[in-house]
């Protein structure tokens, strides 16, 4: 790793840290500003005012918003995310449990989408023929299928034919629902980037010098065309987590989306902030990895940053 690359990584890490703190603190402030609080949910409408006041003070809801936001940021430094009013457990334990599930689903989906999308894109972008046309057609159809609909369609397929398991907690169905549309997007991008590069004079000349076409396409052109594709990985990762909320709900995958929803519905201040923290952390890590890969491939990027 060269020096410029490590400086680049350090700067991006700092940016990611600020992003995570600001996003989670904003979520905390937003939920405090929302009408109603955790005691409204606790069916305390019949309880006496003293009990409600005691509960509010225990949850820190009687403190001003800025004080609570400040102690949240202070707690972050000690990895203390507070206690969930809905579950009555430390938020950190809850979040780690669920964020792992979402990370497994999202991470595997990203790997699967890449492993399908990039090779298919190189094939469909570098030559004509039936194979390339089939790939392009399948991918145009899948790009139009949002993960939410694909999850429902796969669930229907599983119910009617029994080829996929529909047990709650089975990974393959939500994984396919997330990875296939994403793989199709990557395939389209890689296909266009490959088509653009193989027709540039450098690659025509390489082919003319007698370098085997497969070598030109898969080695030289791939490295040049990966650049624009990796450039959109930030957007792809954000879209992946967006889609995962609906997919997790439909396939009963116990992920971060469900936990966040529970927190929102019960006005659980620390739980929502903790979920926002974990979500923004995953997004930041994903973006960082994509950026580092890009900088690794193209030195111009690390110099510019």
């Amino acid at each position, binding site marked *: 790793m060269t020096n410029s690359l490590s400086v680049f990584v350090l700067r991006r890490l700092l940016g990611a840290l600020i992003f995570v703190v600001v996003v989670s603190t904003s979520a905390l402030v937003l939920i405090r500003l929302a009408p109603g609080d955790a005691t409204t949910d606790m069916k305390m409408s019949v309880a006496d005012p003293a009990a409600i006041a005691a509960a509010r003070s225990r949850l820190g809801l009687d403190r001003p918003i800025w004080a609570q936001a400040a102690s949240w940021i202070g707690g972050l430094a000690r990895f203390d995310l507070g206690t969930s009013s809905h579950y009555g457990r430390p938020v950190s334990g809850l979040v780690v449990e669920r964020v792992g599930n979402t990370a497994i689903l999202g991470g595997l989906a990203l790997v699967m989408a890449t492993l399908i999308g990039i090779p298919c894109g190189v094939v469909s972008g570098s030559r004509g023929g039936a194979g390339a046309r089939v790939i392009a057609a399948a991918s145009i159809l899948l790009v139009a299928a949002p993960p939410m*609909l694909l999850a429902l369609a796969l*669930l229907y397929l599983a119910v009617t034919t029994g080829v996929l398991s529909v047990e709650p907690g089975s990974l393959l169905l939500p994984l396919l629902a997330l990875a296939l549309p994403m793989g199709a997007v990557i395939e389209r991008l890689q296909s266009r980037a490959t088509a653009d590069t193989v027709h540039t004079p450098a690659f025509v000349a390489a082919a003319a010098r007698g370098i085997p076409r497969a070598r030109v396409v898969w080695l030289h052109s791939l490295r040049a065309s990966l650049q624009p594709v990796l450039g959109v990985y930030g957007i792809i990762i954000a*879209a992946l987590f967006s889609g995962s*909320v*609906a997919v997790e*709900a*439909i396939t009963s995958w116990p992920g971060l989306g469900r936990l966040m*929803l529970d927190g929102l519905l019960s006005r659980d201040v620390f739980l929502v902030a903790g979920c*926002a923290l974990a979500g923004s952390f995953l997004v930041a890590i994903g973006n960082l990895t994509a950026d580092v890969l890009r900088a690794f491939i193209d030195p111009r990027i690390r110099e510019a940053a």
Partner: protein
Amino acid sequence: MRAIFLLVATGLLAIVAPILAPHDPTTQFADKAYAPPTRIHLRDATGFRAPFFYKQTLVNRLAREYADDTSAPISLRWFSGGRVATSGDSTEPVLLLGADALGRDVFSRLVSGARWSLGVTALGVLGALLVGILVGGLAGTAGGRVDSMLMGASNWLLAMPGAYLVLVLRGALPLVLTTGETFALISILFTVATWPHVARGVRGIVAAERAREYAEAARASGAGLWRLMSQLLPAARGFLAVETVLLVPALLVAEATVSYLSLGFPDASASWGTLLQDVNVRVMSEAPWMLAPAAGIFAATLIAQAAGARVPQRA
């Protein structure tokens, strides 16, 4: 042009939807729980006649088996009661897409739900375009500190997964809302979550345009910020068309997600997402017509894509 047509058609469909529904979306018909789709016939033993259907009778309540009662043909009634077509017998519904668990007509619910789903989508896209054009145009035309401030804000919003952003913002609002409030607030939320996509693209095009000679000439002849912006913005037309075509399906799915998670439209004014709440593994195998709203969203997505494929990509 096609993108504008798409947006207008989306809005129009939302408005005319109730006329196309044969029944009231909330009417529960007795003994019609999960009744299968009614078949419309055009001929009987004597030959062709006006479209009619047979009364469905419940044969086995436990197995939810229905049978056509061929002794009682019912004609369709056209253009009456503010509907294009409805059943000629007020107690026997015409169920083009079957019935749900409470014996309500799924087709009518689908068509009425289109009003909420498509309406919120059209308003959300419109809002995103207006805010995005304004912010992106301003940032691109003004440049300098205004540019970096506005684009900094939109980049932060862009980095967040849209679904989480919408859910947290929606969660911060009162949990129980009337249909009208839901409609207005969700359109605003969709505008908030999507304007940065529009702004970023518009800003890039306008900033590039600003360096060209005609823009320099305009500035030299004393054009102010707004005048200059109005000269530069037309260059972004192609991009805006593509963006509209991308946003329509994205917001349809977003509405479906929010309502599916019971943070959107209530059951009394069910949108496509609300309707999908009733779908689970068991319902899927026994009453697959309950998946109709998902097919609706997919069809809308394909139509938007087909429109998008023809938009000239001048950006």
